[in-house]
């Protein structure tokens, strides 16, 4: 009887303590990040998902990394595992000198062989990430610390692609886990083996992932000892945990809850201009929309500021041209459409649609704001006599339709994988990229094709910008998309978190190596 009572008492204490203990975010050596999506894969050669990259990226080194200027992230790169590099005059051969003394956890050196192995593995597997370093023709280990990379053709943004997750350098010894010639994909899907500042020590699916700092990391020592990524899908749940101090950073709080959080004195809500843009694809191959006057009219009908003010609550900026502000190649004086009902009506009249026309917009629930935006677009277009039918559908279905060109208008979002305007210009407008790979409006203009392809093959930034600027002028007249806005990334965090640096190229990823807590 006594034992039973004692047991009950222990249980009661356990339950009480679990509720009444100090918040988990109070530990200064541990950072707790609440995120809205689970991880699925850890293989840099297979995953194309920023949520996976969040854990993969700090576990590996790459030849180069994004610069940090002051406390701001930059889209330029600087040496990481590579000490220095040279490029041949024709831009076809890049030679990297690798820093000595970097080792993987088992003592294997990070050398030219490891770089060759990693890049060749990504290309051989040939899944999504292979596109990011797809410019590579061959990789040769000249000696232990020199690696020579030959390209298929000159590729302006090559250096930037080496800072992406796909270019992570993995330990060649992972091959001992290879099964049935899978290049160790099965093992790498659930494990990491890199030389980065952190390593994954626990992953409970759907619950949390724990990264431990490596005390002997070759670069600046991480200030934290542990990072816990807690998967919390519900925005309100994250908000409560942030305000209670159980988590330090909340990644997925909905925009309508932000004003309330800002009132909490223990929380700060920094906003960063992001490269994530939202826009409407106008299918240029469809009757009615193959007339550029109609597309221009649609562009003039939209209340851009209204959408930003009421849907985004001011957390966005109207796009000016296809290249967002903050990315080099942005043209600050390019034509920007503003709401002008009279002009839009006049254009429709010139196009022969003075009596109006019927169009259909497809969209998915991928973003909470799209329902509202679709409704606003419907009402805006009604003002110029366009009857816009709205069709909500599952995201996989929508993607299939976009890929096949089976739509008229579609709401979409895009963020670049590496810091180069080609992520917008060549992906969106090259007629070789019809459908999901990028040219989602199925737009074709030979002059634009020529300008953007020429620019992509050049190494000289000035020349590239010039060509992209010329292309942008043509594109804005052709109006294959309605460019809505570039968003702001909001990262609510406890005041005690210091050293967070936002990098627009690393959306949903964190610089754990330099974050600390007071």
């Amino acid at each position, binding site marked *: 009887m006594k034992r039973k009572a004692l047991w009950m008492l222990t249980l009661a204490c356990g339950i009480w303590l679990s509720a009444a203990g100090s918040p988990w975010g109070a530990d200064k050596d*541990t950072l707790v990040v609440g995120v809205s999506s*689970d991880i*699925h894969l850890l293989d840099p050669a297979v995953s*194309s998902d920023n949520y996976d990259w969040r854990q993969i990226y700090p576990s590996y080194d790459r030849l180069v990394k994004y610069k940090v200027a002051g406390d701001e992230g930059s889209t330029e790169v600087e040496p990481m595992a590579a000490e220095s590099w040279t490029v041949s005059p024709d831009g076809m051969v890049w030679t990297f000198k690798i820093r000595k003394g970097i080792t993987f956890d088992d003592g294997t050196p990070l050398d030219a062989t490891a770089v060759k192995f990693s890049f060749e593995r990504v290309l051989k597997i040939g*899944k999504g990430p292979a596109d990011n370093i*797809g410019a590579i023709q061959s990789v040769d280990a000249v000696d232990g610390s020199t690696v020579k990379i030959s390209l298929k053709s000159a590729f302006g943004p090559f250096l930037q692609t080496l800072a992406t997750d796909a270019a992570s350098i993995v330990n060649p010894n992972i091959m001992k886990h290879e099964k049935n010639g899978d290049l160790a994909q099965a093992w790498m899907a659930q494990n990491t083996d890199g030389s980065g500042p952190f390593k994954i020590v626990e992953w*409970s699916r759907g619950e949390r992932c724990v990264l431990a700092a490596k005390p002997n990391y070759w670069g600046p020592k991480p200030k934290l000892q542990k990072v816990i990524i*807690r998967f919390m899908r519900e925005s309100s749940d994250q908000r409560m945990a942030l305000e209670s101090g159980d988590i330090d950073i909340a990644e997925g709080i909905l925009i309508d809850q932000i004003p309330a959080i800002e009132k909490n004195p223990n929380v700060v809500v920094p906003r960063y201009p992001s490269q994530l843009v939202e826009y409407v694809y106008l299918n240029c191959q469809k009757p009615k929309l193959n007339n550029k006057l109609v597309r221009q009219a649609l562009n003039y009908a939209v209340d851009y500021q209204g959408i930003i003010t009421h849907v985004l609550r001011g957390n966005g900026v109207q796009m000016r041209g296809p290249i967002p502000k903050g990315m080099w190649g942005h043209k600050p004086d390019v034509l920007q459409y503003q709401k002008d009902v009279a002009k839009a009506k006049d254009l429709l009249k010139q196009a022969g649609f003075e009596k109006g026309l019927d169009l259909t917009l497809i969209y998915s629930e991928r973003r909470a704001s799209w329902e509202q935006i679709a409704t606003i677009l419907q009402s805006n277009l009604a003002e110029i006599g366009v009857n816009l039918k709205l069709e909500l559908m*599952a995201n996989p279905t929508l993607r299939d339709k976009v890929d096949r060109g089976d739509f008229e208008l579609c709401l979409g979002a895009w963020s670049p994988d590496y810091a180069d305007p080609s992520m917008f210009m060549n992906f969106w407008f090259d007629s070789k990229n019809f459908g999901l790979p990028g040219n989602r409006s199925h737009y074709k203009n030979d002059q634009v094709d020529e300008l953007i392809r020429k620019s992509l093959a050049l190494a000289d930034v000035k020349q590239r910008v010039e060509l992209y600027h010329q292309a942008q002028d043509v594109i804005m007249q052709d109006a294959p998309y309605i460019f809505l806005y570039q968003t702001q990334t909001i990262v609510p965090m406890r005041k005690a978190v210091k050293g967070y640096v936002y990098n627009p190229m690393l959306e949903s990823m964190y610089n754990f190596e330099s974050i600390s807590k007071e």
Partner: protein
Amino acid sequence: MHILSYVLKRLMYLIPVLIGVTLLVFVIAHAIPGDPARMMAGQKASREAVENLRRAMGLDRPLPEQYLRYLTGLLQGDLGFSIRNQRPVREDMRDFFPATLELSLTSMLLCVSVGLPLGIVSAIWRNRPIDHASRVFSVFGVSMPVFWLGLMLLLLFYRQLGWLPGSGRLDIGIDPPAHVTGLYLIDTLLEGSTGKFGNAVAHIILPAFCLSYVYLAIITRIVRSSMISVMGLDFITTARANGISEVVIILKHCLKNSLIPTVTITGLSIGELLGGAILTETIFNWPGMGKYVVDSVNFLDFPAIMGFTLVVALAYVMINLAVDVMYAFLDPQIRY
């Protein structure tokens, strides 16, 4: 017919049922427009990368061949390979199913242990204040939206009062117990950690209550109404006339005879709960089957959808069988 042969016969029926389920889900899943290879490759992937993936996953093969390959694997106990997680579906089930099972069983325990006495009390003191209170409680439960209830519970007991912990199966900083059964309430005890066990209990209280409230309300109402109808029957009057005590009448005669609808609804509820309570799992960040299957559907992860459906179908059939067997114990007139 002997009950054992009845059970065996029912288990034999299971085979065509499960094959039918796989065929149906396979056809429906593949009828959804969309390309899993494209989903997997990432939205900006080139056509070449998508084709490579399609070949690697065997999605380029004709549909009948894909189905037959799946069935062959199934006969060998292989549930297939998750497209999204790139690992056997069996391993996914091993991770996600126990969380749902633990939550469902705890909720059902709560339903039966609260709903049954509440229904009995309501029936005995019919139209008295306690009956009115119990009916208000039940109507509230049946009509309350789960997402609202869940958020309010968290807001009150976690954020405002601090009496119970927030979402998840354990506190953020507590390491999960070694996987033996996958049920934290058992694994923490097997590990010998009462502190972790207490934490797991504290974490399951709110989601279990939230999930059970609807079913608890239904069970209360069903017990009440069936008790009332049994209490009006002649044999109860005879029992009273024979001077049998009221407690024996209520518990032995009335309750036993009114249990059949309760057992039916409880069985169905467990089956439903095992399918995953997506809203409760989302609000309380419970890593169970509901979240898993919604993610799989969004990603067109066919093998994962099929694996989930099979497991749920199996659970439904087994629970129904258990319910049918229980009928025979509850009502001597039922014979197999």
